[in-house]
């Protein structure tokens, strides 16, 4: 940081929009003082399709497939947040079994999403092996999703009022055997990444953000939990049936990229625990509530938030009593988390940009909407 005051020639460097470590099309304009970053301006919007305008022109049910395309690495969680918002607006009660199915799928999705993060993060830092390991386990989760929904990436599997199809035969047993396998594999990730001194030295102490600043910027999910703040909507503002499960919320004080790695690494184990509990308690019964054929929530408005793998996913809906929402807004966690990146990058080395950006876990489909 001492160097910044010195008079050196300032230089601007463009990173992206076409760059492998921006995880999509994101442009960062970096202002450099030698090797140090003095300022950074992110340019977003390359994937913008005015998701919200599209939403205003579709019926409530028709929006579900569009929510898949928000965060395409966690489609189940996006579906979940959206249908929950509409259900709250309508005052719908979802059958017990459907609630369990939702939690099971959303938590498996969280594991899959974190696996992608871990794999690509390793890739960003030059560790190719972890990428292959993570994709091996993610593949198994995708197989489970394919068995139940018929899709591998954009599931559109949640419905307003419940779930469209029950688990297939043997699905529960398959899922349990996957969890048993997955638990054995978790230490392998430590061996490849976390226990590696080179990796630790590479990520410790970079991308630091103070806890007060994190709250001020509205960070959420693993980003805020890596600042030592115990904040998880599954626990702090429980929705669905999350209050029935025992799980820990991993919190680390480090505030840096290393702490974010630790949070996500432990979250995978906790999500596996939730799925295990839910599978054990899974009740029999209906999976779909009685829902009118055309969905017309009463006039009113609602802001409903859920914990997606990236943080607080909020949907803001205004209904005028018709079949289409009057206003449909998505508060995407990655958009807000990305807005704090300039703060984290100040004083970092150019070589650390990739690591810091990777640790935020952005998905541009959700940032640009």
């Amino acid at each position, binding site marked *: 940081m001492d160097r910044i005051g010195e008079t050196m020639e300032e230089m601007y460097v463009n990173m992206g929009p076409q760059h492998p470590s921006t995880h999509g099309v994101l442009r960062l304009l970096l202002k450099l003082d030698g090797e140090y970053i003095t300022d950074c301006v992110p340019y*977003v919007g390359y994937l913008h399709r005015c998701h919200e305008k599209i939403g205003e022109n579709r019926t409530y049910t028709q929006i579900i497939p569009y929510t898949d395309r928000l965060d395409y690495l966690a489609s189940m969680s996006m579906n979940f947040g959206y249908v929950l918002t509409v259900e709250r607006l309508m005052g719908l009660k979802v059958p017990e079994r459907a609630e369990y199915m939702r939690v099971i799928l959303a938590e498996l999705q969280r594991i899959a999403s974190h696996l992608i993060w871990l794999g690509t993060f390793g890739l960003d830092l030059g560790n190719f092996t972890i990428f292959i390991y993570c994709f091996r386990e993610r593949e198994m989760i995708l197989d489970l999703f394919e068995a139940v929904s018929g899709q591998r990436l954009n599931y559109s599997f949640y419905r307003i009022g419940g779930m469209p199809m029950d688990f297939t035969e043997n699905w529960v047993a398959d899922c349990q055997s996957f969890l048993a396998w997955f638990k054995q594999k978790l230490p392998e990730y430590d061996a490849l990444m976390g226990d590696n001194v080179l990796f630790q030295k590479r990520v410790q102490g970079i991308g630091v953000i103070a806890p007060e600043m994190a*709250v001020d910027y509205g960070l959420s999910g693993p980003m805020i939990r890596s600042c030592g703040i115990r904040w998880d909507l599954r626990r702090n503002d429980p929705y669905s049936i999350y209050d029935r499960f025992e799980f820990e919320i991993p919190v680390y004080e480090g505030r840096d990229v290393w702490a974010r790695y630790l949070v996500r690494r432990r979250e995978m184990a906790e999500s596996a625990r939730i799925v295990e509990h839910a599978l054990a308690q899974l009740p029999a019964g209906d999976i779909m509530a009685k829902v009118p054929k055309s969905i017309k929530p009463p006039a009113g408005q609602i802001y409903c938030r859920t914990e997606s793998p990236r943080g607080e996913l909020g949907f803001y809906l*205004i209904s005028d009593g018709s079949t289409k929402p009057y206003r449909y807004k998505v*508060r995407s966690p990655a958009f*807000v988390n990305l807005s704090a990146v300039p703060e984290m990058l100040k004083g970092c080395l150019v070589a650390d940009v990739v690591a810091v950006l990777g640790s935020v876990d952005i998905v541009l489909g959700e940032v*640009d909407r």
Partner: protein
Amino acid sequence: MKPEELLEQLKQKFGDAITEGEVKGAEVCLTAAPGASWEVCRFLRDAGFEYLNCLSGADWISRLEVVYDISSLRHSTKVHLRVSLGRENPSVRSVTDIWRAANWHERECYDLFGVRFEGHPDHRRILLPEDWVGFPLRKDYRDERMVPYTDYGMEEKAPKAEGEKAAPKAAAAPKPPSASGAAGS
């Protein structure tokens, strides 16, 4: 802080500037006059509402609205604050100096609704290109490139006058495969 208590305090402090206020569960729904919105936000921030969840807009045709969803990490009370603005030259004081999170949210609101945020440090479009004309989320926004959405398969069921039947179908017929294909990829 209890939602009822908070509403009482706000009403005492701001009087007529709070035009509507009610408690819905853990949420306080407020409508504030545009002139007082910054002061209300400042007060809320000082009262422990340190987390700005979301800032968005809405177009009510006769007026525009900016909506703030504010909460705290320490208690469950939430605030849903709405500020009505005129349609011509809508502007409101920026809250970026209260919550940094507002920075990008306000830029997005400006981008899509055309609301000006006075005192914003970086008042530019964010999602759309800088030379874009118009504000897409306004209800009267029109663009000749926008393809109206048709429920294919539904149009046969819609009652139509005899003479009209053939014409719209012939016009719409070549569109569906290419249009939906392009949107999906």
